[in-house]
């Protein structure tokens, strides 16, 4: 069978060329630039990063500087651990919020489906920064949140929401990235095989049992894709922390990158952090690819 497909395989390769070209130009080449900077030199006068293109001349000083400081008990470890915790919590929170919404819209909305989808896309019309700034306003010491919590002055709620509260950062991340999770979930849930679900009900499963034992396992690749789609950008997020906290107590790896990039002579360190985040994100991606390649679910 494979042999007779040889000619069409060549056609597909040619058709894939633009995609491969895009990948090379906009992903692999910039990645190589980052490596050239991480392992490069610094201009002695202006202390800007000078990339070194030849791998044989690479200087690992800046990379090893960062590498020796990310272990437990070292300087950068708290920020890295914090990032994992915050992103994990925010992703789970996003999933808990987005899944019911996506499930409803894809399966139960009926004629309201179009309107609901439009409403779900609406947050994308407003920039991330504006949405976070709105929260800054609400969370100020004399803002709406404190006013509501104090029941209009009954209790004295003196919570400083915007000074280094991890809860606020996690909720901010969840709030910012929920729209990114709803749409892929919706797309995946929409393609669930209705006949499989009906079959499970016909064979005697209760609604809850059918959901837990048939629907959820079928959704697994979709949920994985949606989580990855939101979790990976969250790992590099620095803006949420800057706006909602601005305190070193809640610094994430994105803030480490941001601080190093802006400091002359430390661009290499920023690149090292970028490589770390990249490695941390490649592993889940490999897992995801393996899961979907091995997929044995039936889709309509």
């Amino acid at each position, binding site marked *: 069978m494979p042999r007779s497909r040889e000619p069409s395989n060549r056609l597909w390769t040619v058709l894939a060329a633009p995609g491969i070209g895009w990948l090379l130009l906009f992903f692999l080449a910039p990645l190589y630039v980052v490596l050239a900077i991480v392992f490069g*030199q610094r201009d002695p006068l*202006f*202390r800007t990063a000078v990339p070194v293109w030849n791998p044989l001349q690479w200087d690992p000083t800046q990379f090893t500087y960062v590498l020796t400081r990310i272990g437990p008990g070292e300087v950068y470890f*708290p920020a890295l651990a914090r990032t994992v915790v915050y992103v994990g919590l925010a992703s789970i929170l996003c999933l808990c919020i987005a899944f019911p919404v996506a499930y409803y819209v894809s399966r139960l909305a009926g004629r309201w489906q179009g309107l609901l989808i439009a409403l779900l896309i609406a947050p994308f019309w407003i920039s991330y920064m504006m949405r976070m700034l709105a929260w800054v306003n609400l969370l100020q010491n004399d803002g709406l949140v404190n006013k509501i919590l104090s029941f209009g002055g009954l209790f004295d709620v003196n919570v*400083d929401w915007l000074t280094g509260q991890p809860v606020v950062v996690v909720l901010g991340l969840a709030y910012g990235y929920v729209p990114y999770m709803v749409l892929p979930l919706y797309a995946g849930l929409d393609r669930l095989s209705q006949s499989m679900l009906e079959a499970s009900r016909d064979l005697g499963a209760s609604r809850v049992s059918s959901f837990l034992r048939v629907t959820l396992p079928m959704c697994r690749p979709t949920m994985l894709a949606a989580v990855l789609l939101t979790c990976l950008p969250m790992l590099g997020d620095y803006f949420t922390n800057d706006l909602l906290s601005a305190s070193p107590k809640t610094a994430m790896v994105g803030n*480490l990158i941001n601080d190093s990039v802006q400091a002359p002579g*430390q661009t290499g360190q920023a690149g090292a952090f970028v490589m770390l985040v990249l490695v941390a994100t490649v592993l889940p991606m490999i897992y995801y690819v393996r899961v979907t390649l091995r997929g044995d679910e039936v889709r309509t």
Partner: protein
Amino acid sequence: MPVPIGSGPNRRQFLQRAAILAATAPTLGAFLAACSKPAGTQGAGPSLTIAKPDSPVKWPIADDNKPIGDNLPPEKGATLKIYNYADYLSPQAIKGFEDQYGVKIEVSTFNDGDEAITKLRSGVDFDIYNANYTEISRLVTGGLVRPLNHSYIPNITNVWPTFTNPWYDQGWQYTVPYTIYTTGIGWRTDQVPADIGKLSNPYASLWDPTYKDKTAIIDDFHTAMAMVLLKQGITDVNTSSADDLKMVGEQLTALGKATSPKVTITMYSDMPAGQIGLCQMWSGDIINAQSYLPEGVGPEILRYWFPQDGKGLVDNDMLVTLKGGKNPVLAHLFLNHMLDPAVAKENFSAIGYQPPQNSLTAESLVAESFIPENLKNVIVKPEYFDTGYRTLELDTANEDAWRNVWNAFNSGGS
């Protein structure tokens, strides 16, 4: 179980492709190198002369960078391009100049000096740049600034005499002063009832757990760490002593544990909004803060402290003309325009930062109620510049050491 269409590469194909990739990887590097611009001098390049108050520097003027000639007419119908911080130049001053010379002015902004210098090196045609003396060495050595022709700037006599021969630019060959400011402690009396200025060590109030979650320090490694040094009584705010830096690191960790400060430069709006009650602040910021106060909150709750003997962090910004600019005559005239007393005073009221004008003394500013009584400590006096401490440009190794301490603090130990 359905088999995925198009099975993956078999072992031979995989090895072939890996071999091709390994063979082409170095050429990819050469390809990228060919695409990039030629790199600047590496290794043995020109070294940096660092100016200090006790070792002033007269910068050389390169032969290909002589000042413009005398009595040249201003460029007609031109667009003067100014590169400055945001909100750091009065729109009225700009309009006044535009009307007087019939030109347009375009202001581009930057967030910090390093970003600005990177942009300047990329070959832009800005005419005027708002520089700090910590950059002057790099600007001159890098050939980015144009020397001044003093005949176009007679208004220099209006500013403090020290600026005609500052230690960072003897003979004012490249710079004119723009603003002067101090870095002290600001607070709001409704959140911080204590008079911070009367404490024996006002800087230590930032470590006081009473003010937890209400404090902030300036998001600049040198300014913040210099304050820590001053708190501990060390007056060399450009120290290269490893022990001092280690102590600063420990103090910063203690600061994080005690009051968990924000690290920001927006205290001019955060403090009036009530987010911050006590912070390290620039003198101009507390003046600006008055206009950010919400309805019903008067400016009398704001306070500022700076050592009355001037033994604190003092600073000044400067304006320089850039070599890449296309309107050198207009640039000179604009510098002269900003040194005019009336323009400078109006600029002061717009941006909150004091110009070093002879006519603006502490007495006159308070008498005219230009500065409210509760904020009279923001006024910068000439004597401060004799006794004050300057944060200077650091050499590469020292700056690395400082920044490493700062990064460690910023990454927030738990």
